[in-house]
């Protein structure tokens, strides 16, 4: 299952994915790399939970799962005085098209996640935690089970961890094929053994989460950044990136590049540098478009991307979002109508159907893009797509509705002439297509 060696070079700035060769995932290897030092330091020095949270706040770490919410702030929402059970959950249900970083963290460096979760649990007073692993990556789930076994045996998990008197139990749970379970409240429903239907918010998970108890949910990569922050200090992490955009980020680069793969770089790295790390455009073709944050985020034309840096604020300024860090690269032979069609089908397929605007709207979007692609588009269709999108966004229980609407609007905004050409001439502008 190990990938060829070149795929384990995550780049010189890596702090999460550093020193990995695909085989050194075991606890011994991790400890040799300085692993579990952060947890030991916290327990030995009796650092208080408030101090841990303060350090995370200082680091500028923002959630790596999609929304980019400040992690330290999220942790501080957990009721410290609450007497009953509190839960911690890791969202490893990586299913946002283009994203494949959490899988690499879990299969090549699983203990960094375990350590990060243990520290988070300590900071928030959680005794129990679950790591929800995407169903399709079964060997990775098994890897996580092995790693947990090792950690329990070594006394890094369980009762009286490292003789500190502090106890914490972590378990893996697997999904079985539902994109919507990546949405945090759908994930909680799924963990409870139900259909993954997103919950109305409020109440938020910090007050009513797993089994109705206070719960914090973070992405895999978010937890994986925590040990480094404790070892090196929040300020050092912040300084790796930019103000408000601390640290490194693993970007999953896919599409028309020579070397698709994961690359961990400091936030604020120019897109051009990242593209170069991925080997540049495949076959020397030209960059036409790029979705910089996973399929749910707006697409941007190549020229704009080439002038953009890879951090939350810069990408937002350029008109898209950093999202999950999935960078989908498209060259000049790609048809934008066809590309959007595949994405629209995905959201239609994955809508859970609870809200009418999403259930009906995603089907509508897909059918209209489908008829444009197949030469049956009407002149009013582009305005129709925009208006259907506007009627979904912001009117639904969860953000899948927005995720379906944003790409449509951005594809039309930036590539309107291509859609118009399909409608006018019943055929494609570009010679070859996806």
């Amino acid at each position: 299952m190990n990938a060829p060696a070149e795929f384990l070079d995550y780049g010189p700035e890596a702090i999460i994915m550093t020193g990995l060769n695909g085989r050194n995932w075991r606890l011994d290897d991790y400890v040799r790399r300085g692993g579990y030092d952060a947890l030991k330091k916290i327990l030995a020095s009796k650092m208080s939970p408030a101090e841990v949270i303060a350090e995370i706040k200082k680091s500028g770490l923002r959630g790596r799962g999609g929304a980019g919410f400040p992690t330290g702030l999220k942790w501080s929402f957990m009721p410290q005085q609450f007497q009953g059970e509190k839960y911690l959950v890791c969202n490893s249900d990586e299913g946002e098209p283009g994203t494949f970083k959490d899988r690499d963290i879990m299969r090549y460096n699983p203990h960094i996640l375990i350590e990060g979760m243990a520290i988070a649990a300590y900071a928030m007073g959680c005794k129990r935690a679950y790591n929800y692993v995407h169903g399709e990556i079964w060997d990775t789930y098994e890897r996580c089970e092995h790693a947990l076994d090792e950690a329990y045996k070594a006394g890094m998990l369980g009762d009286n961890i490292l003789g500190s008197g502090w106890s914490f139990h972590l378990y893996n749970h697997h999904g079985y094929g539902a994109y919507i379970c990546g949405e945090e409240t759908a994930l909680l429903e799924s963990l409870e053994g139900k259909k993954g239907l997103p919950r109305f918010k409020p109440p938020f998970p910090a007050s009513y989460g797993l089994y109705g108890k206070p719960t914090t949910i973070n992405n895999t990569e978010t937890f994986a950044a925590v040990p480094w922050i404790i070892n090196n200090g929040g300020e050092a992490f912040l300084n790796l990136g930019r103000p408000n955009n601390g640290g490194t980020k693993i970007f999953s680069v896919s599409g028309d590049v020579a070397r698709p793969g994961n690359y961990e770089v400091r936030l604020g790295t120019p897109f051009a540098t990242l593209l170069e790390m991925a080997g540049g455009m495949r076959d020397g073709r030209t960059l036409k478009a790029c979705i910089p944050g996973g399929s749910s985020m707006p697409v941007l034309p190549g020229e704009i991307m080439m002038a953009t840096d890879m951090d939350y604020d810069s990408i937002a300024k350029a008109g898209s979002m950093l999202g999950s860090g999935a960078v989908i690269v498209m060259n000049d032979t790609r048809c934008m109508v066809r590309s959007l069609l595949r994405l629209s089908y995905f959201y239609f397929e994955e809508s859970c159907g609870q809200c009418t605007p999403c259930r009906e709207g995603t089907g509508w979007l897909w059918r209209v893009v489908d008829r444009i692609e197949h030469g049956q588009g009407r002149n009013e269709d582009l305005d129709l797509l925009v208006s259907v999108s506007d009627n979904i966004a912001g009117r639904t229980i969860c953000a899948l509705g927005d995720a379906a609407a944003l790409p449509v609007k951005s594809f039309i905004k930036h590539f309107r002439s291509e859609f118009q050409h399909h409608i006018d001439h019943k055929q494609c502008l570009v010679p070859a297509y996806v």
Partner: protein
Amino acid sequence: MLSADALARIDREIAKYPVDQKQSAVMSALAIAQDEKGWLATETMDFVAAYLGMPPIAVYEVATFYEMYNTEPTGRFKLTMCTNLPCALQGATEAAKHLQDTLGVHFGESTADGLFTLKEGECMGACGDAPVVLVNNKRMCSWMRPDKIDGLLAELRAALGSGARS
């Protein structure tokens, strides 16, 4: 209804959750049952429901909600290929065509000999390895260009011929 081994595995899953939350083990219990039976017949789901103390309808809901459960009999090998955009940009469209042409069936269909069922999948979180094919939910095959697809099909046929289980 399920083997002692399967039940032992389900028990290990149940132990992961608070004692009053056995239902949380339903997803893994159904996966274990499916691995043993090939698909989830009503009586299999009823058994799981009774084992976990859940209403049968709650189990059916889970089995039908999640894509990877087989609520109908499938071929000996279920091959799921991701065709979502990132994979499509890296050769999945051609690979999907090759797979369907070679087996003479479309996605959503099974070969007449009952060996293969093809499914079109969504992102498996493995786009860097595109094209990707998942064999019976558990085995992920990476970089599945047409020649590697031929190799996989030959290997699966041979495994069956020699009586080995995948």
